[in-house]
């Protein structure tokens, strides 16, 4: 028995640890550092229909126990990803979750339809929550009805299960979760970044060229845990949790809150080996907690 294995829609995970979208590119750079087959899965950088350059620089700024980013969905476009990025990843024994983005429903549908056919793409992650794209994107992530319709439209064309990534910048995260579940989502990934800003100490102007950026890192973990805790009690589809994970205890916390798997974002920049390190340390932590299989952790915060 593999005590770390988890099964989620479309995903047979050796372990529940995967790098989060946008924090791991398309895997190449980290693939030079370690064997990517160790990972439970890989969430690749958002893919849009056309090539995107993204926002002007500076695109990142540091904050207390966190960072802001406004990359702006830079990516080589659907064809670039299909032709140059995904094939390279085929040599690893690891399922890919393709992060799909766009400005309107038609874009999402087109990308979803085609990318879901790639042999190593086992699931889609609908990025309806990126705070750094101006047109459209933000609406999808904050209006339950629109999110539901988009989910349904993508589900209709996707060859693989569809996870929807929720934005924390909403009044009622449960309503958003229930809406995408009703739209047919097979799972939820959460949370994306909180919208934040840092000002230059001297000039008082925003440090990031895009002005606002997405806050990630340990600073947001309490918000993420709370949201996973709330959402996991109202939906029946599984959750991949994220937001500030840096160590094995954070993984235990997210799974206790109700996540069935956990993604690691910003921490990859601090320690490029963070994912394999966590995976290596998980069994010992389960022993300390007296737990046989990692699935026993899921939702224990609210189980009686």
């Amino acid at each position, binding site marked *: 028995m593999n005590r770390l294995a988890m099964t989620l829609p479309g995903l047979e995970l050796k372990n529940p640890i995967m790098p989060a979208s946008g924090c791991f590119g398309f895997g*190449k750079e980290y693939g030079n550092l370690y064997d990517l087959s160790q990972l439970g899965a890989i969430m690749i950088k958002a893919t849009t229909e056309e090539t995107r350059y993204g926002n002007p620089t500076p695109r*990142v700024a540091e904050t207390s126990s966190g*960072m802001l980013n406004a990359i702006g969905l*830079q990516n080589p476009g659907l064809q670039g990803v299909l032709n140059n990025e995904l094939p390279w990843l085929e040599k690893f024994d690891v399922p890919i979750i393709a992060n799909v983005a766009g400005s309107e429903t038609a874009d999402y549908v087109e990308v979803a339809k085609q990318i879901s056919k790639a042999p190593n793409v086992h699931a889609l992650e609908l990025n309806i929550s990126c705070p750094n794209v101006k047109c459209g994107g933000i609406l999808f992530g904050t209006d339950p009805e629109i999110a539901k319709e988009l989910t349904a439209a993508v589900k209709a064309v996707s060859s693989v299960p569809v996870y929807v990534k929720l934005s924390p910048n909403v009044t009622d995260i449960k309503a958003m979760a229930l809406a995408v579940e009703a739209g047919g989502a097979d799972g939820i990934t959460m949370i994306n970044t909180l919208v934040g800003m840092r000002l230059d100490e001297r000039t008082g102007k925003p440090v990031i060229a895009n002005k606002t950026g997405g806050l990630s890192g340990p600073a947001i973990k309490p918000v993420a845990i709370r949201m996973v805790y709330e959402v996991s009690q109202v939906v029946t589809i599984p959750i991949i949790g994220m937001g500030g994970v840096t160590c094995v205890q954070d993984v235990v916390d997210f799974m206790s809150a109700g996540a069935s798997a956990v993604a690691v974002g*910003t921490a990859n920049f601090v*320690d490029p080996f963070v994912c394999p390190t966590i995976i290596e340390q998980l069994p010992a932590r389960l022993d300390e907690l007296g737990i046989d299989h990692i699935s026993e952790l899921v939702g224990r915060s609210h189980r009686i």
Partner: protein
Amino acid sequence: MIIQDLMIVASQQEIAKNIFEMKLTGKLVGEITSPGQFVHIRVSDSFEPLLRRPISIAEISPEKNEMTIIYRAEGRGTSLLSEKREGDVVNVLGPLGNGFPVEETSAGQTAVLIGGGIGVPPLYELSKQLTANGVNCIHILGFESDQVVFYEEEFAALGETYIATVDGSNGTQGFVTNVMSEISDDFETFYSCGPMPMLDAVQKAYVHKKGFLSFEQRMGCGIGACFACVCHTNENATDQAYVKVCSDGPVFPAGVVQI
């Protein structure tokens, strides 16, 4: 190969006002392939401050497994770094990026090395390697004031060295460009590292020469995965062409990057 090395502080010294020279030993040194590469340093064991700090490699002594970095203690990250003492362990990721192409200047030729402020450090190892190859190096180093001038003698030992300070407290008053306009342009290549406006001025002044510029950008990962550090290139008009400073650079041939 890029490795994450727990390097040992061999020495730490304030060599000018708020400017620190730190020597680090570890097997990472064996991986360095060219001057102008940099390392990404974790300044704390905790996640506050969160991000690593990119710092250029200023000198290497492969036989001792030792490298030197020179940095200005400014914000909270570099200030923490300046508190490390001999024997402390520092988590260093590197070597990163592509450095200056030493082979682009041949023995007997002349190279001009132009540095500004904390852009000066990588030029030191570059000059050492160039002069070792029989290249004649001319150094033009710009600083705010005499208080923050460093390595003047070290550079002078390798070749002709001109200092420019904004307030005139050492060398020529003004910028590196003031010195540049006075020296002969009888040289084959130029190499430069410093603030953007300086790189821009250098590139414009030496538009017909072969040159290499080292850029700075805010970084996330430092290895090419996060797209934080991109710059537009002059390649085409669609604005889609870009390079990543961390993994494609930080050194690019003059003219490649849109300034």
